[in-house]
């Protein structure tokens, strides 16, 4: 019974972790950017979605779309206002660009968090679930919304897979993550590809933010935690590896859920952090990492 509970409960949260981490790893793969404003972008999507759905009375569906759009806009802002100027700056030495991007996005993420707390308070908000009710899965009472969140996460991940593997732009993206110079030689504009990667990322982070708000609830104070969990999943899975991130998302999701059930809810994040430290020692490239 306990095992079934862990299996069922862990699935939805792991799928959501996967969705949030896939975009994060994609922009790292394509443009070498570790975006530490990630949690901030998810929080913006969740809060704006909540505002549109509830306060402005647009309903859950329109609210969800507005939230995702807000996530996309914030992702663009992150790229155009913070990341690209640093990458193009001549004052910053090339070997230091990455650390400046890291610091820049970290500060940007804090600015988003504090700004959102000012506008929305740090009280958590929840978006009304798309579907109400509960279903019984092998004796575990599960909200229908939880099943739908897992399904939507996988639909989004599936679409991403199709996009990357079946379209020209997608293949170019894949190419850019393997060999940027080669892609440029084939006539692709690298900046265009970066913008595509950030678009995909913004949509995925936006969806993850809105779904999280309808599942567990989101507050501005979650921003740091959300960045940290995406970061550890991506490092564990192997930086830049989409499949690695998905596997890591399930490992972390289930490890957390099992800890919460079998040891104590308070210790929930600890074992996955220990695992991360071990991974850095034993296999620094992560599960499926190449570098």
């Amino acid at each position, binding site marked *: 019974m306990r095992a079934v*509970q862990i299996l069922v*409960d862990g699935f939805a*949260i792991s799928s959501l972790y996967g969705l949030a981490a896939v975009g994060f790893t994609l922009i790292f793969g394509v443009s070498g950017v570790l975006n530490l404003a990630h949690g901030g972008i998810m929080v913006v999507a969740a809060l704006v979605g909540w505002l549109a759905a*509830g*306060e402005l009375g647009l309903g859950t569906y329109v609210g969800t779309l507005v939230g995702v759009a807000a996530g996309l806009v914030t992702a663009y802002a992150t790229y155009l206002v913070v990341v690209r100027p640093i990458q193009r700056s001549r004052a910053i030495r090339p070997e230091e660009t990455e650390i400046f991007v890291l610091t820049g996005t970290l500060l940007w993420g804090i600015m988003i968090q504090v700004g959102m*707390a*000012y506008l929305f*308070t*740090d*009280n*958590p*908000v*929840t*978006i*009304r*679930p798309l579907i109400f009710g*509960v279903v019984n899965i092998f004796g575990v*009472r*599960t*909200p229908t*919304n939880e099943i739908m969140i897992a399904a939507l996460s996988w639909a989004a991940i599936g679409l991403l897979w199709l996009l990357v593997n079946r379209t020209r732009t997608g293949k170019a993206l894949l190419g850019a993550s393997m060999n940027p110079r080669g892609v440029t030689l084939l006539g692709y504009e690298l900046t265009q590809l970066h913008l595509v990667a950030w678009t995909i990322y913004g949509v995925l982070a936006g969806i993850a933010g809105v779904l999280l708000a309808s599942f*567990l*609830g989101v*507050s*501005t104070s*979650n921003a740091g*935690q959300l960045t940290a969990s995406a970061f550890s999943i991506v490092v564990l899975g192997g930086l830049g590896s989409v499949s690695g991130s998905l596997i890591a998302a399930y490992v972390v999701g289930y490890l957390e*859920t099992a800890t*919460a*059930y079998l040891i104590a*809810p*308070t210790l*929930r994040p600890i074992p996955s952090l220990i695992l991360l430290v071990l991974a850095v020692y034993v296999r620094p490239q992560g599960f499926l990492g190449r570098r």
Partner: protein
Amino acid sequence: MASATGGARPWLLGCAVLAIALGPLSASAQTTEPIKIGVIGEESSVAGASLTKAAAMAADEINAHGGVNGRQVQVITYDDHSSAADAVRAFQRAVSQDKVVAVIASYISEVVLAIEPWSARLHMPFITPGAASNLISKAVHDDYDHFKYTFHGWLTSAFIAQAICDYAKDELVGPFQMKTAVVMSEDAAWTTPLDERYLECLPKAGLKVLDHIRFNPDTADFTPIFHQIEDAHPDVIITGISHVGVQPTVQWHDQQVPIPMVGQSSQATTSTFWKDTNGAAEGVITDTAAAADVALTPLTIPFTQAYVKKYGATPAYDGYTAYDMVYIITEAIQRAEGSTDPDKLVTALAATDHVGTIGREQFYGRDNQFTHALKYGPGLVTTVAIQWQNGKQMCVWPTDKANAKISFPSFIKLHASAN
């Protein structure tokens, strides 16, 4: 911080001489100067924002009625961002720079416990309108001469737990024949004494405690906690939550956990909670200072209505107390014949007997273990229990004040009715 460099010293000396020379003049001018009260809140949380707003309202009202002995009351607000370090800095600034005569601060026990020693060191009268930890008044009791400047303008955790036990006995054990409970509290300074009293008074009220769960306030997913509670098959969940509120409530509702949630849920005390939870609050019962439509005193309803008119939502529990504390401070100044001398003010505050928005407010004396904390009991402050019903907070206890009967959402399975 500016340091007194060699070059600055003659300048400082000059100022000092000037100040002494002008001394009598400024003393006579002082009588018309405003009485400044520092109010430190947490603007990004519901309860923390409510206390600064309510305090400002009280000052406006007092000024509209001519002030205190002809002097205006000026509330200076500070935001501590829910951080004890920021709160201490704000407190120091209020004292040294803004020259306040008293400080009202915070609903967070950890923050208040950090300010308390500074109130002692700087001899600054200080009242918290919302923190609950027993340790606040214990320090005053244990070392009165040192800590006497601190007052606890809200009930201690022990009394909050007692109120909930009293209420559970009257409304749950009686009418619903509930027999068992699980205590579910966030891990924080205020819940340690709360849980202690719960474990002691719930069995006396007729509820056997089957399990006691303390969880990290950072918890986002409450599913495992609710499953653990369900495994114990209690009749009711007794809560002690303040930093969290929306998330457990929404998940309780979405997962259709079939056990009522009753106890202290601070976020549920303000009217915005309904929107924040999309109505998942339906059926939640919490203890609070006062209910919007219940006249605990003649002041309750006028204050609530004025607050709603000004800010669009009802005050949180500490809004009521912060409002009352501004009056209590100004009355103490009047009793001290206009003096704002800290020691005279403390003596005057200790003699408080004020009918405020939540009842008759007095502080425990030096001999009581809860020195300078608000007195609890019939005829004084007893709190009320409210239940969210169809988007409204209805009062369900004390019985003589109640304006609604308890009713639970359909997913709640009442064991007694099933038997």
